[in-house]
């Protein structure tokens, strides 16, 4: 992902990420983007400063101020563990962003793609938390259209390999697209390279169209 990233995370979304209130699946995609986008990483650091300032300015409750906290026992000295050297990333797994690789232990090789429709495969991550939303990898064959779908709440798509385009523009590796509530869109994968992306929605994506409905019935999507 060395190309210059054109499409970044929306400020409001990035601030939710910094505040720690963003839905789990969306946060996963933002983390994946931030891990390769120095621009957004710097923004997050500046946003964290807002949290730090608000935390530092929290009024100390009166009784707490007067409380005589026992002094901290001297904690045992822990020498910092050397940062875990990341094992060499094989060519195949290089497309999976580091935060996703670390969390799910997945590489490009061991993805068990499931066919959703002609030219469309997916892999869904299982996640903790009731409100984690829907997080999956989507692989689209060259020139194929992603299934037309609507979604509850916000949807974030991060391009990992190849490209896709829709009426809003072209999205290359590292680019992120945010689509708001209830909008239906059906982006087309690059004619030569196809597209692999990481896609998250606050609620389960509802894939539509005849094929979509059949697939939904089969797989319980």
């Amino acid at each position: 992902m060395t190309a210059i990233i054109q499409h970044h995370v929306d400020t409001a979304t990035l601030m939710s990420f910094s505040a720690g209130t963003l839905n789990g699946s969306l946060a996963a995609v933002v983390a994946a983007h931030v891990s390769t986008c120095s621009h957004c990483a710097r923004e997050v650091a500046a946003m964290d400063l807002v949290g730090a300032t608000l935390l530092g300015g929290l009024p100390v409750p009166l009784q707490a101020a007067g409380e005589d906290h026992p002094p901290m026992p001297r904690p045992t000295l822990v020498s910092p563990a050397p940062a875990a050297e990341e094992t060499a990333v094989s060519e195949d797994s290089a497309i999976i962003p580091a935060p996703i690789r670390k969390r799910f232990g997945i590489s490009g090789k061991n993805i068990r793609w499931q066919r959703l429709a002609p030219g469309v495969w997916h892999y869904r991550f299982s996640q903790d938390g009731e409100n984690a939303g829907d997080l999956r990898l989507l692989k689209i064959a060259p020139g194929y259209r992603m299934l037309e779908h609507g979604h509850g709440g916000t949807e974030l798509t991060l391009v990992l390999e190849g490209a896709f385009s829709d009426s809003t523009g072209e999205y290359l590796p590292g680019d992120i697209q945010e689509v708001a509530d209830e909008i239906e869109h059906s982006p087309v994968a690059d004619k030569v390279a196809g597209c692999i992306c990481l896609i998250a929605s606050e609620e389960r994506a509802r894939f539509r169209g005849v094929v979509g409905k059949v697939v939904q019935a089969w797989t319980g999507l």
Partner: protein
Amino acid sequence: MSDLLLRIANDRSSEAFNALFKDYRPRIKAFMMRQGANPALADELAQETLLTVWNKAALYSRDRGSPTNWIFTIARNLRIDRLRRETVWQELTDHHAETLEAPTVAPDDAMSLTQRQQRVQKALATLPDEQREVLVLAYVDALPHSEIARKLSLPLGTVKSRVRLAYQKIRSALEDLK
């Protein structure tokens, strides 16, 4: 603040740690309670936050990130992990600073971190109440934008644009320090 952390980092000064502990423990406790933790659990998490600071202080150096940022990101991540039992996707701020920016800030620039904090504080204080309010609800009360919208009876779009406007002002207050 910065000096306290440096003394903890370089000299393993337990005196400095106690000062930091005394100052931040009730604030972090209040921060945890705003997310719904009971007082005992909130205090436990406040202690854990500060112990993490102690244990990781050796990794801290003045030319990387701001110490209060560090305390905030540790507390925020604990809140996600322990109170909401969700996956933590955020890294500590310093990690970004370390991996993405050249770690070559001259010691003379060290003041700029304190300065940055002061600028943010000032910018926050001069925000219109309605903009400051959404930031407090998000950062301190840990409410997602959709819940803030419901609480204030506002369209979600209005909450988001208040957040964006507020950040623009804070960002421009930091501009000339870059």
